[in-house]
């Protein structure tokens, strides 16, 4: 697992993918920071982080698209699958590499907090809770998108499928307000990644939120392993 993690992390920074992900994220979030915080003379970092979390939806597919689809496209998965490594190890290694890049990027956004701290006041505990929610949400999207990469035959289709899946989760929120059947509405609210994130943005450490996100991640990683394994059984060439 560690071997795969290391290899993926290297390849993020040998190829443009890692830089594109971090660069685009920082570019867009800087603009958001300028508009929402600096121009408004506001010190409200949690709501800024809430807005920034919409970027996960856009950028996680870029981070995960290659991970499994490219191995399949280039035939390198034959090396991995005939080596003494378990499927779980492969999937987890790849996932953790994506999460590592995601963490590096999140650490860089700490600069915004420093800026606010210099010119105003920040509330460390509140900020920490917001960040916890932010990171968990990113990890959840990464797991969902990794699963899409495991389903797709090429990185491009993986990215498109991942965008689709991410938008579906986003649209759930919009739907929730429109459907007036209580059971369905409740189910949607239960599933929504964004609704789960709201308490964090208000500075509440929501255990339900943490557990939901962790279960979400575990479920999609397990599905990915299942998906790869079932493909071995009915592979056609």
């Amino acid at each position, binding site marked *: 697992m560690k071997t795969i993690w290391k290899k993926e992390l290297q390849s993020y920074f040998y190829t443009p993918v890692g830089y594109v992900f971090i660069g685009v994220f920082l570019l867009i979030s800087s603009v958001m920071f300028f508009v929402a915080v600096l121009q408004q003379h506001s010190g409200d970092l949690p709501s800024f982080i809430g807005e920034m979390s919409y970027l996960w939806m856009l950028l996680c597919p870029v981070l995960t698209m290659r991970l499994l689809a490219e191995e399949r496209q280039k035939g*390198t998965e034959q090396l991995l*699958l005939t080596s*003494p490594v378990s499927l779980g190890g492969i999937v987890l290694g790849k996932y953790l590499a994506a999460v590592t890049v995601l963490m590096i990027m999140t650490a860089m956004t700490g600069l915004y907090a420093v800026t606010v701290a210099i010119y105003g006041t920040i509330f460390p505990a509140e900020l920490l809770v917001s960040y916890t929610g932010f990171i968990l949400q990113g990890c959840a999207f990464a797991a969902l998108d990794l699963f899409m990469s495991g389903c797709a035959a090429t990185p491009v289709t993986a990215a498109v499928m991942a965008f689709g899946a991410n938008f579906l989760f986003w649209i759930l929120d919009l739907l929730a307000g429109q459907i007036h059947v209580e059971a369905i509405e409740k189910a949607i609210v239960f599933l929504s990644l964004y609704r789960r994130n709201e308490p964090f943005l208000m500075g509440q450490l929501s255990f339900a939120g943490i557990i939901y996100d962790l279960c979400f991640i575990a479920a999609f990683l397990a599905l990915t392993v299942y998906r790869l394994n079932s493909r071995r059984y009915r*592979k056609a060439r």
Partner: protein
Amino acid sequence: MIELEHVTKKYGSITALSDVSFRAENRRTVGLLGRNGAGKTTALNLMTGYMPPDSGRVLVDGMDMMTHARECKRRIGYLPERPPLYDEMTVREYLNFVCDLKEVVRKDRKAHTDEITEMCALTDVRDRLIGHLSKGYRQRVGIAQALCGNPELIILDEPTVGLDPMQVVEIREMIRELGKDHTVLFSSHILTEVQQLCSTAVILNVGRMIRTVDLTGEGSDTVTLRVSVAGKPKDILPGVRSIEGIRKTETLSSGDPGVTELRLTCAKKTTRGRVTDQLFHLFAAMDAPIRMLAPEADSLEDVFLHATEREDDVP
């Protein structure tokens, strides 16, 4: 030792392999022969644990691939049809990565990869990106990859396809070297290659195993000679028949009435030299120049064509 035991594999409605059984004994080089689509790649993919069989078992040193996957895979080095290379890595980085995958101990890694790089003649390119290498080098990196972790069993899927003639010779030489202290199994549709390198050939046709051919000649004690002599058959044959040690004489059509073509079967390998000498003296005395005199290898081509044709007749 690796063994397929009554293995069947289907892709949807297509049966890729049907009840195939064979084994590769230790330190033997086994060639898997068959036309395109015969199921060679499928057989190799099953043997390396890339895919599980629908029924039957794959055994590596007596262990079932399904239940002891890790143990089995540790003993196998595999070069698939398309070498599994990462273009963005250098040769050195790639081999280090594969060594980590194959659980080579950290402190031995440097010596191990150096040895492999040397053996596969990759020393000059070891710091170049794999994406920039030519096809021949890529193939060699692929073989180098299969050697990482020093597996006892090396499995190669059509290792010489798409290479230029020099590279083909190099790769064959490498396989011969490997065969000295490894069990090597490779697939090919080139008969001469299998004949040159292997001690056993397994012939597959449309997913069925037709036969196993022993190429060491240890099984049979006869040896065949092909002779072409300037002279009419009726003059030549009586003399030839009188030579001691020839068990069977066949006349082949030469297309030229003035030339006689014969296939002679010597009763024993040890008598081959004596029979050849006698033929020479006989023809010299008859003033019939010898156009050709050569031992005929147990022709794999005949076996192969015969076997696959017969299978084609089956509806």
